[in-house]
């Protein structure tokens, strides 16, 4: 017996943190405008020392105001979507569950769009106005996962194939509604169809949004992580889990809520980036095993790495133009989905 220890967990996370650091440096260096490693190091040091006013070069501005916020956004979005995917996979006992495949991302996108359409007509204090979109995205996500959960139930039990089909159909339906709404409303502040349907990290936000994102992110991940042992046992089935002392209803409610929050937050700032929650947990399981005490933090870091890499590629492949980041993740994720589906049916 070699049970998981805290040291082992720290070691695994440290390993991924080092990779994330290198990925971030690479993402900062490459782009439409080349930046030397020396200038990059100098400017980063200044940002860390709080002397950002001394950064004068154009390169520095690109780094600080364009690439760095985008990378931070990528880290939060990637980590949120992977942890949400891991949670859905455990609760639904389905290794193919993912916020995008289940339609939860589309539900969140629809919620966000509705809030953007409604916002100009509402009289709200400005502080609340900025938070309306993430909140509506969260509601959209929560309503969608509830609907898909009930679509996937047959005779009181979750049926994997019905669930996946229900999710895919829901996603397609919601996308149609999104396209319809976006064609009706042609205002400048609704960001555009490709943003919501494919995902994009190029929008920049006010500072308060980043803080709100980070806070929601840490709360939701904390809640899910506190149930890590319960999730391990839930993989054996809800009945078995009950006999082993898991308060199944309580855990299910908490984790669905937190996973919807993560999806809602991510989608409200980046649109529906697909398949991250599918392939990242899968790779992490192969590397570190399926214990959720390891899987949740490593998936968060892995998701951050994956989205930052995908977004860097999205910026570089057709430079000086850009691809939506969701196109890159889908190119990797969709074939993997097919592979996993075929293997499971075999």
């Amino acid at each position, binding site marked *: 017996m070699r049970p998981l220890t805290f040291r082992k967990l720290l070691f695994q996370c440290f390993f991924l943190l080092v990779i994330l650091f290198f990925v971030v440096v690479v993402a900062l260096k490459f782009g439409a405008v080349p930046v030397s490693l020396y200038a990059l190091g100098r400017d980063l040091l200044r940002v860390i020392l709080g002397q950002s006013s001394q950064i004068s070069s154009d390169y520095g501005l690109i780094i600080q105001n364009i690439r760095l916020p985008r990378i931070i956004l990528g880290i939060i979005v990637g980590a949120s979507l992977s942890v949400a995917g891991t949670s859905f996979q455990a609760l639904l006992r389905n290794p193919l569950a993912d916020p995008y495949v289940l339609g939860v991302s589309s539900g969140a996108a629809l919620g966000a769009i509705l809030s953007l359409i409604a916002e100009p007509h509402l009289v709200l204090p400005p502080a609340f106005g900025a938070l309306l979109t993430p909140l509506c995205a969260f509601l959209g996500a929560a309503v969608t996962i509830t609907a898909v959960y009930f679509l996937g139930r047959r005779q009181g039990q979750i049926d994997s194939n019905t669930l996946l089909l229900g999710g895919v159909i829901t996603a397609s339906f919601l996308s149609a509604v999104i396209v319809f709404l976006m064609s009706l409303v042609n205002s400048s502040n609704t960001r555009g169809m490709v943003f919501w349907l494919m995902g994009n990290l190029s929008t920049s936000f006010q500072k308060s949004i980043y803080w709100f994102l980070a806070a929601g992110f840490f709360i939701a991940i904390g809640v899910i992580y506190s149930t890590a*042992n319960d999730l391990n046992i839930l993989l054996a089935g809800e009945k078995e889990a009950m006999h082993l002392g898991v308060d199944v209803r309580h855990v299910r409610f908490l984790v669905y809520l937190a996973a919807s929050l993560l999806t809602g937050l991510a989608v409200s700032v980046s649109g529906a980036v697909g398949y991250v929650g599918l392939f990242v947990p899968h790779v992490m399981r192969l590397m570190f095993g*399926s214990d959720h005490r390891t899987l949740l933090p490593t998936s968060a870091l892995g998701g951050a790495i994956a989205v930052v890499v995908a977004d860097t590629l999205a910026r570089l492949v057709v430079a000086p133009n850009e691809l939506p980041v969701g196109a890159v993740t889908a190119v990797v994720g969709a074939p993997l989905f097919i592979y996993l589906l075929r293997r499971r049916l075999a």
Partner: protein
Amino acid sequence: MSPSRGSAAPRTPPESARLGTEIRLAVEQVSYAYSANPTQAPLFTLEATSFQARPGEIVAILGPNASGKSTLLQLIAGVLSPLSGRVLLDGFVIHSLSPRTRAQRIAMVQQESRLLFPARVWQFVLQGRHAHGRSLRFESHDDILIAQNALLQVGAAELSDRWMDQLSGGEKQRVVLARALAQRPLLLLLDEPTLHLDIASQVGLLDALRRLCAHSRYTVIVVTHELNLAAEYADQILLMHRGRCLRVGPPAAIYQRELLEQVFQVPLKVEMRGHGRPRVTILSDS
């Protein structure tokens, strides 16, 4: 319910001294009804059932399919709440305990669903320790010792590092029993534990169970179709038929030809053997 109808000699079990008089499990007039939705008539009902079990006792629940055996077991496990009546474990009403408290006292061995992701045997057995710690934690030295000991008790210590999906049926069932033992329960519930096992594995499992009962004073409730194994190993038999508990009593009192033929709908022969354990032979029609 009368324990005997007189045709079989009341036995004086040699175990009576071992069992003592303390009552561990008391099932008091428990009933249940299952319906697809609240407005429809119930599809299945379990009529008021009562019995008691002492520490170290093995109780077998017998009956044909759909007789209410598994429902009764779920009620005892506390995952279903009875429509009326109550189930007491050492004086506490089981279904009002929290899932965690329940799992510290009651362990269930049932047909396992397929595992979603591969797991090692030791990881599986350690799941039994879940109810004994706070939710988020790492296994303590004690947990590991208890899990190793549980594997030893069922004779599966050498399986510890194997993958769960590479075990044979008999090995797997012993590992599942080990996980239940790792819960350190008072009450051990088994739902058809010998299903899909070959004869040697069946006897091996039940011998292990009897040893554990005598040694650790578990109260064991087992649902089974195996009339002869139940007669051989059980101290008490509960005979169920169409949602009703027909009889409770020692095997010698329950195993009567007319009664068993009526319940199981097959012609059969009952022989009484020397040590008060009956044996049933199924007679084919031809």
